[in-house]
Structures are given as structure tokens and as C-alpha cells.
């Protein structure tokens, strides 16, 4: 087994016992990147020099006997909508193709302080708007399980990098499922934390009231380790809260015995593909055998959640993305005769189709005369959904649902926006209600593509989700990387 295939927790042990060095880990991952990145196209920017510099620094400090945090020396990939000082942050948009942030996002500060090694910035749907990673201005990322298929989105680059072994851990962001959907399509673990537990300072805003930065990894323990580093109140983000119960340092006792698991029937509708349902059923049966108490529940508001999500997120996006006007930074149109034209041309040329669609939608639903009918109704629906989930957690400890209605689909297959939006049907309710939700693999379809299972808990119940997920992971014997099952590298390690 090569070093790049190890989980972060395993590498952390090896590094601490001196069985390998940070530079060796990085060399292995970098070697993997050079061999596979040509086909996967997960990264928009690679920061090789800085990464090796960081790894050497960690090794040096360790050699001096310094006691380092558990994730010191672990390579991490960062979604390219999270600001990194001195390294481009493009949001996969022409609008920000040359934008370099003068500051580090709060989560990047935390990663750097704990000695993590930044590999580079990963591809996404432009500004996080999309479910397939096809809406990037620069490139289409492939799914390592089948390179003809999408990795899911919008954090598709981070997911593909992890699945391909081009990173050990990754940061994504989840506005309506953007961490969980690609985690599901790429056979990974991904967490959308409770709203307000991870600082959004430095996350380029798409829909401020719904999104969170989320950890992604190849094991439950890895995601938990990274989450414990990310969470906590940040004075620079007024929406962050003190996390009352999470303490990542404690040992987990994986168990589902006596856990009351709600099965909301609305998540198992006809829109969910058969292999997804079958794998979910098998996973639930396994949990029930171990003593979990399953109960079918109904969350009728769920059906309106997708509409509410697209209205609220687009409304906020139309405002959040208004600052890209060609005046201060970012793309500026070459020709314009007036201020009005400078705005119009820069925005018309700088934004992609999907982004423009959402800005138009958002501007419309907020406009006078329509706000009551759309935006305010969506907010009202949001209140209803929050209430429904609150009531559900009076009788359930957690909910289990599919993460996505299907498995990874072929690149170019979903042509209509509405069709694409349906991919988020299972993930948006957690964003609408601000709840923590974790996606983990639970089997494969007949093409060998991973299926995702979603655990949703009440606010601040991340630890409960990790316990259940860890139990399932152990019962399933861990989550393999794709090339063990379906080698996608060219024969003989030929450079791509």
C-alpha cells in the first residue's frame, strides 16, 4: 500500500511514531497527482513549492521534538471558493480567474496553524452553483470511479482528488448538498455541519444563510478529525455559535444500539433510483440487526424544500454576486462606453450561464411585487420545514435518507437545469433547516458506482452522526478507493 492510499488518521499515527515523514507523504501524493491528474482534472491550482516547503517545515519541527497537532503534515485539498492568501481563488469563474485574495479564510488559518499541507485549489461548479462540476469555466472534473462520469458538485474537485488519491483530506462547501453529493458520487465521507459551527469568513459567498464549509475524507474518523479542527465560534463571522457539545478529542464509541432512526418516507419517493433504494434498505437492515430502532416518519415539507432552496439561495446569490462589477477587481470587459455598459459587459462576459440564470432568478424573486409571492413564501416554507424537523427529532435520534437520488451520471447527460436541480432533492432540506448532515458510502450500483447514505441529526449532533457512521463503516469493512476495484490509471504507470 502506498502512502497516498492511507487515511489521515493512519498517516497521523505514522507521522507521530516517525515511521514516515511529511515529505514522504507529500511525495507519494504528488507522484499520484502527476500520474492521475491529467485524467481527473481535480485541481485548478497546484501549489507544489509551498506544499513541499510546508512539509519540510513540519518535519523539521517534529525533528526538534515539538509536539504537533494530529493533522500536522497531512496534505489537504481546498475548494477554490475558499480564500487563500497569495494563491488564486477563482471560484471556477472567468470573473475571478486572476483573483488573489489578500487574506486567508478562517478555516485556512486553522489548517495552517495546525500544520496541514495545502496541495492546491480544487475545481467546482462556478461559484458553487451546480451539482456535477460541469459548470466550471476552466475544466470538467472526472469521477475516479468512472472517468466518463461526473464527480458530483459543486465540490467535485475536492471529491475527485480524494477518491483518486490526489489528496488525503479536503475542504468543500455545502450550500444545498455540494459536499454530500460529490461525497456520495465518489464513495467518500462528507459532512455539512450545523449552520454556524464553522466560520464562513473567507468562503466566497453564494447563499450566506444556507452554506457551511465542510470536511471531506475517505473515512469517518478523518472527517471527524478535520471537523474538530474547523468548528468553533469565530469573532469574524457573526453567524457562528459556540458549539455546545462537540469535543473531537474524546474517543468515539461506535454503536447504534437503541438509537431511534427515522426513515422519512418523502426521501424514498419514485424519484429515487432503484439501486439507491436497495442499498439503503440493506444498510438499514444491518443497523436494525445491531439494535437500531427504525421508524417510518413523514416530513411533508420536504417536497417544497427544493423550491424554497432555489428561491432563497438564488435571492441571496443575486445580492452576493453583485459586487463583481468590473470596477474593483476581477474580470472587466474590454469595451464599454459608459458605467452602465461596464457593468453589463463585464458581468455578461465574466459569468457563466448557470450563474447568470440564478442571478436573474434571484433578482426577480426579490423584486417589488414578486417578493411576497416568492422570496417571502420560500422563507415561510423554511420556517415550516424547520418546525417539522424539530418535531421529528422529538421521537428520533437521527434520520437516514439517500444522499442523492442516483449514482454518478455520465458527463453531459443532464442538459436541463431543472433536471440538474433534482440531484439536490435529498440534500437541501438540511441546509434549509440548518441541520448537520453526513454522507457516507453504502454499497454500489450494478456499474460499481458508489451509493451514498445520508445521516441527518438535530442541531449540534455531529458527534451522534459520527458514532453511527463509524459503526456502519466498521460493519461495512471500510470504504475502498476506486482503483482497487476499477483501475483507471493507464497501464504501466504511464504519465498522463
Amino acid at each position, binding site marked *: 500500500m502506498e502512502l497516498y492510499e492511507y487515511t489521515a488518521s493512519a498517516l497521523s499515527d505514522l507521522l507521530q511514531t516517525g515511521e514516515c515523514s511529511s515529505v514522504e507523504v507529500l511525495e507519494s501524493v504528488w507522484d499520484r497527482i502527476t500520474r492521475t491528474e491529467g485524467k481527473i482534472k481535480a485541481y485548478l491550482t497546484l501549489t507544489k513549492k509551498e506544499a513541499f516547503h510546508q512539509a519540510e517545515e513540519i518535519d523539521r519541527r517534529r525533528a526538534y521534538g515539538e509536539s504537533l497537532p494530529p493533522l500536522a503534515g497531512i496534505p489537504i485539498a481546498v475548494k477554490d471558493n*475558499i*480564500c487563500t492568501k497569495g494563491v488564486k*481563488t477563482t*471560484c471556477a469563474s472567468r470573473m*475571478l480567474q486572476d*483573483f488573489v*485574495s*489578500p*487574506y486567508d*479564510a478562517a478555516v485556512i488559518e486553522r489548517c495552517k496553524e495546525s500544520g496541514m499541507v495545502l496541495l492546491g485549489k480544487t475545481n467546482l461548479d462556478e461559484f458553487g452553483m451546480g451539482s456535477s462540476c460541469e459548470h466550471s469555466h476552466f475544466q470538467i472534473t472526472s469521477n475516479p470511479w468512472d472517468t466518463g462520469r461526473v464527480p458530483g458538485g459543486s465540490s467535485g474537485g475536492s471529491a475527485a482528488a480524494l477518491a483518486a488519491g490526489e489528496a488525503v483530506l479536503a475542504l468543500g462547501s455545502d450550500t444545498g448538498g455540494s459536499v454530500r453529493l460529490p461525497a456520495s458520487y465518489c464513495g467518500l465521507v462528507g459532512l455539512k455541519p450545523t449552520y454556524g459551527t464553522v466560520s*464562513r*469568513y*473567507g*468562503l*466566497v*459567498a453564494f*447563499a*450566506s*444563510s444556507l452554506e457551511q464549509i465542510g470536511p471531506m475524507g475517505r473515512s469517518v474518523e478523518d472527517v471527524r478529525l478535520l471537523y474538530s479542527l474547523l468548528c468553533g465560534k469565530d*469573532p*469574524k*463571522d*457573526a*453567524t457562528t455559535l459556540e458549539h455546545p457539545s462537540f469535543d473531537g478529542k474524546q474517543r468515539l464509541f461506535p454503536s447504534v444500539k437503541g438509537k431511534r432512526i427515522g426513515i422519512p418516507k418523502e426521501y424514498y419517493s419514485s424519484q429515487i433510483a432503484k439501486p439507491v433504494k436497495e442499498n439503503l434498505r440493506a444498510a438499514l437492515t444491518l443497523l436494525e440487526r445491531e439494535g437500531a430502532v427504525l421508524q417510518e416518519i413523514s416530513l411533508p415539507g420536504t417536497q417544497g424544500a427544493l423550491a424554497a432552496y432555489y428561491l432563497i439561495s438564488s*435571492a*441571496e446569490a*443575486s*445580492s452576493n454576486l*453583485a*459586487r463583481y*462589477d468590473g*470596477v*474593483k*477587481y476581477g474580470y472587466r470587459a474590454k469595451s464599454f462606453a459608459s*458605467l452602465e455598459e461596464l*457593468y453589463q459587459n463585464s458581468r455578461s462576459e465574466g459569468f457563466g450561464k448557470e450563474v447568470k440564470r440564478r442571478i436573474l432568478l434571484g*433578482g426577480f424573486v*426579490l*423584486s*417589488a411585487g414578486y*417578493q411576497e409571492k416568492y*422570496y417571502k413564501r420560500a422563507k415561510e416554507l423554511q420556517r415550516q420545514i424547520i418546525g417539522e424537523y424539530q418535531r421529528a427529532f422529538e421521537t428520533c435520534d437521527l434520520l437516514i435518507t439517500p444522499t442523492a437520488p442516483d449514482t454518478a451520471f455520465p458527463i453531459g447527460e443532464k442538459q436541463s437545469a431543472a433536471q440538474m436541480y433534482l440531484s439536490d432533492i435529498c440534500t437541501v432540506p438540511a441546509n434549509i433547516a440548518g441541520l448537520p448532515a453526513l454522507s457516507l458510502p453504502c454499497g454500489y450500483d450494478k456499474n460499481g458506482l458508489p451509493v451514498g447514505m445520508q445521516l441527518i441529526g438535530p442541531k449540534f449532533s455531529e458527534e451522534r452522526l459520527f458514532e453511527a457512521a463509524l459503526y456502519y463503516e466498521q460493519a461495512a469493512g471500510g470504504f475502498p478507493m476506486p482503483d482497487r476495484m476499477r483501475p483507471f490509471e493507464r497501464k504501466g504507470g504511464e504519465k498522463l
Partner: protein
Amino acid sequence: MTEAKGYDIHIGLEVHAQLNTETKVFCACKNSFGAPINAQCCPVCMGLPGALPVLNQKAVEKAVFMGLALNCQINLVSHMDRKNYFYPDLPKAYQISQFDRPLCEKGWLPLLCGGKEKRIGIERIHLEEDAGKLTHSDQTGKTIVDFNRCGVPLIEIVTAPDLSSSDEAKAFLDTIKRTLQFLELSDCKMEEGALRCDVNVSLTPCGSQTLGTRVEMKNVNTFSGAVRAIEFEIKRQVHILTQGGTVTQETRRWDDQKGISILLRTKEEAADYRFFPEPDLGQIVLEKESVEHLKKSLPELPAQKFMRFVDTFGFSEKEANALLDSQGKCALLEETAALGECSPKSIGNWILGDVSRKLKEGESEEILLRRLTPVRLSQLISLTEKGTISSTAGKKVFALLLQEDKDPQELVEKYGLQQISDENLLRQVVQTVLAQQEKSVLDYQNGKKNALGFLVGQCMRETKGKGNPEMISRLLLEALNHPESTGRLPKML
């Protein structure tokens, strides 16, 4: 003041005041004027991707304090909203403001203007951020954007259309400015744009219950501009109405240099700001107790002071205005009066006379107020009122006091400025002068009454200017009108 026969005039104002907090409203940048271009901004106030606002609680407190001063209801729960529009001075392309739930609502300000007392309704006071500043260069054809002002905390005070003349509007604006200054909420430096206002005017046929069509004017900025803009707008609307036309709802742009307003946009073209709650900030929740506490800490407000100065102290509205224009002068008056040695009116006269004159001549108010303490002013006034020194000597003492920073009593002694009020001594002087000035005495007795002035002057000369002129003049009159009472007849008679 422009009249509009047959119409009631309704004027409303929107006053923007920058709050003098240490830091800006959503970031830790310093809130001060005059830094080099773009030297006082950060990712937050420049609206860089990923940056987030954090509300400055001091700004909230100051806004609430103003609300309490204007008798507003304070909303214990409110929130910020986004006001969306594109302009190069607005780096986020939205202004964080308050829309449907401002911090303060439904207040009023008592106003005394032209002897009439009335209450001006305050519809709301909300908190928001200032925008940057654009400087257009005709030479280069370029525009410089300075983001230093972005994120400076502002309050917007919106009145009901309760003002009915430009004079009232001016009186209201003066009172608002004073209130902000007295409560130390704003520097109110108009030249730095710390205080700006927009006006709206509507004319209603007398007796009509429904308000006329409202016309708003932007870019008014200064108070004197507001007066001119209101006058212009009243005339414009009267002209339209008397020609049989109708006023259309519109927003106009005031050009202060030309003294005219031009159409900016009609109602149909009104901007849609697509307000919605700012998702990056939570609700603003105020503790009832802390609001009560703030309310209790309110000092006497300028509006009340104004009325007390007029009603109790007996100043005219003009005098009261002049006194209230400077917090320093106002405090000097109150503190000197509190010593109980002299009447507020005589103190006020000193302040409005000699003190104001000195300040006009360029004396620094800070130094002046440090040297002219209430105790010294009280002493100075007492010395003149008791006749210890003449009013001329009083002026001299005042000047010396500012130069030498010494007590009036000490200066009077040092420079021998005591007035001679000894009646016997002065009677002798009068006799001497009468004896010397026979011609003038004759002139006087032949009806040339102004000869008296000359004789007083001669007596003053005889006393080297220290004689009490009032006593001299009385003794002279006695001697001239009743020669026998002097015990000695002038030679001629």
C-alpha cells in the same frame, strides 16, 4: 420665507449623521476622516469576496441613544437589511441598512419656532453604513474611488411631513445637530460630510385632509442648501398649481451652485432596491434594562434647553439659538448662572457680546473657555454690575484675563482699574470741571443739552477715566439743575 397662499406646506426631512464611533460599523478599521485615499479600509469594508460584517455594538448604542433623545419607541428586536444597487462607491453593490424594522420608531421632537411650539414627528431612526467617495477629475476624465468612508456608521433620521416652512426646517436641523453634538454621537462636521440631509415637499390645498403629491430632493447636503431647496420647491409647486397644473411624484436633484433642482427620476423610474434581511448578521436584540439605563442617562436636551432659555431666562429665540450653537458657550452660561452671583441674562449678554466678538476675531474657543472660567466670568460681571469697575474697564479686564490667565479681581488691582464711585470725591471733581468750563455750563443752561456729554467727558478726564460715568452724569445734572444744592453758586450767577 416663501408663502404659498391657499396651500398648506408639508416638509419632511431625512437627516444622515455619521456616528463618531472609534471603529467602523462592520469592521475594525478606524472611523476617522482625512486618511490618505484607500488607506483606511480592509477586506470587510471593501466588500472583498468572502469577507463578512460584524456589527459594532457601540454604533447600535449610539443610534438607540439618539432614538431615546427623540422620544422614539425602541425596537428590542430588529435586524439589518440589504439595499441592493450598483454604484462604484458601493463595493458590495448593496448597502447594509435597515428596512422594515429599524432600531427606533415613532418619536417626536419639540420645536419652538417663531413663538409657536410644535411637535415634529420622527417616523424612524435606522442604522446603516456609509458608502465610499468618488472624485471626478475633469482634467483626466477619470474618477477616483476612495473606500475610506465605506462602513462609517450612519444613522438616518426620517421625519413626518410636519414642518411647514423653511424656517421650521432650519430650526429642526439646528436642533438635531445640537442634540447629536450634546450627546456626543456625531462630530457633525458638515464640511466633512458628517451630517447631510434630503428634503421632501408637498403642498395641500388649505383644509384638505389628504396630503399633496410629494417631491423629494436629493443632494441637498447642507442646512442652508436645505432652506434654499425648500424655498425653490415651494415656488416651483405653487407655480405649477396656480397655472392649473398638477405636481407629479418625482425625485429631483438639487444643484446648490445654480440654486435650482432638476428632475432625477419619476415615480415610475423609482429604483427597486430589493431589500431583504442581511443573512450575514443575526437579529439585533436589545436588553430592556440597558435601554432603560440609557434613557435614564439622557441629559437635558438642546430642545428643552432652548425653551428654558427663552421661557425662564428671557432670551429671544435668536439669542437662545446663538447660545446653543456652541456647547462651550452654553455650558459657560449654565455654570456661571449656577454660581448665583449674576443673572442669566447679563451672563448671556456678555457671552453673546464680548465673548462671541473675541471668537469671531479668531480667538480659539478652547483657550478662551479654559481661561474664562465660570468663576472668573461671574466675578467680572459682578465687578461691573456693582460699579467697582466701569464697563470700559470691564472690557479691558476681559482682554487682560485672556492674555494673562488671571482672576479679574487681581487684574483690576494690578492695573488700578477700580472705578471711582466715592460721591464726595466725584462731587469735587464736578465742581472743578464746572468752574473750568463756564462756556459749556452756559450752553447747557441755554438749552444745548448735549453740552452735558462734554462735561461728563471732562470729568472722566479729570479722574483719568476711572470715574463712575453714571454717578458723574447724575452729579452734573444735580449741579446744573439745582445749583443751590451744591452749596456754591457758579461764578456767573
